[in-house]
């Protein structure tokens, strides 16, 4: 009886999040008979303020049609939604010039030319497309003059980061596998056509581009050591894992060893150290179907920890950074039993309940087709896991969200009410903006520092690592959101790449504080 009363009370104080669909459909191009591998991979998004009005806008990469692997119809267009405030969004894609022509998977936002306007890079089946933000609400496709048109391999994700601390943003592009429409095979799962296992495709290498500072990028992949390490990359997490002052890269690979590229020689080269650091594969020894990833400090020790999503029975492995290696804590945090039955794509740390302990949210679904052998079982609902002093439990308020082929996920306070909202994408469905009910009395602080590589401390033990890459093939350029619990104020410390530091004492809660070097 007491338990029942508790459950009733819990239900009463746990309001549901409100899903709001956006007027577009994420097109995959798959058919009942044809399941080209790229068709299971779209779903990346970017959250950034493209027009400088102080509100966060939404960009969605969209697919296309096969065998061309291009956008052939208007419904294939990428979409840019301008945030009008109060959770209203207007489709401004055409006027902004970001419709795109290539079958697209993800997006990463960053002001690569430091002109104050956030630019956009879209990863696609035939390489990347770089959109320069003109600052007047429109973008120019500068892929060719920027030197990024030469590599037409399948790019699934990317990330802006300042590899050499020279104050301009360099670029990592994640290539999944060598894929060719002409040689695409037909695979059968449980008697029906479905997507093929990644073992049928050759691994490929990732690309590192150095920003020359004049709007042109130089491919430094070979010199930096990337060409010696082929993989089947799905996404990227960027943080200074070894605390040497330079950004490192974690790349989850699909059914082959994950990669950890540690910066060496002031960002001139990278050493692949996944085994030395213990993140090449989970403790059970089986390289999983690693998907999306995120790096943040979940345990408050000031070091960037790691999580990545994977498919069913592989769990979502969580790693604690010890300073010289990673320790897998999936079981110790109970995330193993929570995520065992889940297949995940977008995954990220975010303090959804403003209690000062980073939670985890995941966009879930199988990699197999919903019209393939496993049928509707491929669909799953999205989930979030609430942290309670180092252990995770199922978060509440998402129970009514439907099963779908969820892919991308990103979190940001879209209506500036002090709670993180969540944006999800789903294959052959409309993106959903999940409005946080924001009903609790927990306090918060948003630190407006958007420089990738900056580290922010709030209070004594909350650290954020600013990164352009988030979850699966997605990106957020926004203030860093910290839950404060009951605290009315907190100290803020910001350390920019290169070491410049600023400390603000006793910043009052429930506000956005902009901090500049």
């Amino acid at each position: 009886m007491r338990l029942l009363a508790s459950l009733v009370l819990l239900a009463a104080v746990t309001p549901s999040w409100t899903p709001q669909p956006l007027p577009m459909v994420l097109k995959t191009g798959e058919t009942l008979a044809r399941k080209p591998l790229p068709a299971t991979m779209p779903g990346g998004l970017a959250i950034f303020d493209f027009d400088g009005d102080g509100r966060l806008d939404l960009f969605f990469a969209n697919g296309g049609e096969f065998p061309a692997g291009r956008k052939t119809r208007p419904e294939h267009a990428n979409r840019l939604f301008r945030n009008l405030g109060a959770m209203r969004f207007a489709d401004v894609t055409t006027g902004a010039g970001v419709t795109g022509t290539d079958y697209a998977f993800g997006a990463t936002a960053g002001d690569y030319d430091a002109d104050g306007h956030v630019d956009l890079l879209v990863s696609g089946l035939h390489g990347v497309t770089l959109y320069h933000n003109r600052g007047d609400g429109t973008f120019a496709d500068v892929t060719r003059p920027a030197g990024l048109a030469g590599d037409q391999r399948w790019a699934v994700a990317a990330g802006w980061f300042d590899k050499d601390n020279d104050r301009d943003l360099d670029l990592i592009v994640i290539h999944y596998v060598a894929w060719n429409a002409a040689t695409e095979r037909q695979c059968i799962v449980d008697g029906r056509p479905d997507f093929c296992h990644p073992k049928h495709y050759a691994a490929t290498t990732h690309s590192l581009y150095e920003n020359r500072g004049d709007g042109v990028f130089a491919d430094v992949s070979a010199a930096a050591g990337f060409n010696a390490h082929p993989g089947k990359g799905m996404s990227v997490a960027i943080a200074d894992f070894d605390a040497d002052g330079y950004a490192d890269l974690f790349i989850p690979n699909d059914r082959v060893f994950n990669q950890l590229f540690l910066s060496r020689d002031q960002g001139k080269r990278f050493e692949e150290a996944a085994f030395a650091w213990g993140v090449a594969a989970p403790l059970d020894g089986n390289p999983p179907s690693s998907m999306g990833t995120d790096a943040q400090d979940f345990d408050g020790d000031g070091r960037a920890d790691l999580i990545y999503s994977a498919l069913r029975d592989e769990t979502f492995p969580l790693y604690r950074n010890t300073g010289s290696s990673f320790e897998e804590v999936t079981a110790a945090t109970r995330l193993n039993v929570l995520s065992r039955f889940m297949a995940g794509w977008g995954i990220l740390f975010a303090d959804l309940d403003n209690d000062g302990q980073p939670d985890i949210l995941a966009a879930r679904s199988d990699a197999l087709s919903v019209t393939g052998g496993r049928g509707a079982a491929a669909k799953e609902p999205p989930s979030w896991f609430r942290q309670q002093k180092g252990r995770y439990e199922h978060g509440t308020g998402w129970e009514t969200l439907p099963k779908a082929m969820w892919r991308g996920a990103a979190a940001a306070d879209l209506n500036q009410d002090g709670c993180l909202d969540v944006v999800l994408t789903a294959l052959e469905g409309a993106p959903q903006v999940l409005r946080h009910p924001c009903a609790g009395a927990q306090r918060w602080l948003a630190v407006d520092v958007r420089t990738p590589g900056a580290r922010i401390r709030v209070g004594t033990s909350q650290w954020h690592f600013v990164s352009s890459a988030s979850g699966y093939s997605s990106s957020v350029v926004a203030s860093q959101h910290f839950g404060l619990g009951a605290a009315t104020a907190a100290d803020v410390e910001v350390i920019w790449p290169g070491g410049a530091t600023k400390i603000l004492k006793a910043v009052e809660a429930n506000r956005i504080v902009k901090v500049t070097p």
Partner: protein
Amino acid sequence: MIVALLILAQDPAGLSAEGAAAMRAKQYPVAVRAYQTLVAQDAANPIWRLNLGMAHFYAADHAAAARALEEFLRAKPQPGPAHLFLGVARLKLQQPCEAIAPLEAALQWPQKPQSRWTELADAYQGCQRWEAAAKAYSEAAKLEPQEARLVRQSAHCWRMARRYELAKPLFASLTNKYEGNAEFQFEYGDTLVRLEGAEAGLPWLEKAVAADANLLPAQAALGRALIELGRPADAVPPLEVAAKTDPALLLPLSQAYRALGRTAEAARAEADYKARITQP
């Protein structure tokens, strides 16, 4: 006597009678010859092919049975015993995936439903369609509730389908019937580890290894569970045993060595792991 009659009887009615008599007498090669003659004489009549297929089936010539039954079904595709015999023939030929379609069609035939669910479940299982197999075994178990084996198979297939939450109650219902069965204890323990964590499954994995030390998947699961519980010293022996056939275990083994300060062995195990885990 039957052979003599067969030689004499060349008219269809006589051959048919003799074929039937041979079947009743379990003289299947004789029946085969009778029906082969009938097929040669009257190729348009599919019933001779059905009878020929049945005769081949009972003569344990499953390849020939499958050929004859498929020809019969081309002419008479309605659900009936031919589907069942064809499906079973395919199973006997170690062609479970090819057995599924005829066995699914046989479900439409109202006679002896329990045997068809079991055969269909076997086909699904052989074709590694685990979820379908689990459901089919459950259907078969409803018709033969005294057959614990069918529930056991359903639990096994749910586990293979990674639907541990559905496997667990079935395993739990069978613990008395399979006491001392190492394979059962391993599967139940491994299910509990995945569902509830290492602590929950550990006692069953320990029982499984105690019952059969040669059951390497149980040794592997025990080693992994002990690593998860932070007991590297206890994890080393089972991991060492199981890693001989499962190179993925070399990684947790190297971690266990490292935790125990056995750095040289850790390095060797990790190097071995890297070399043996193929990178597609």
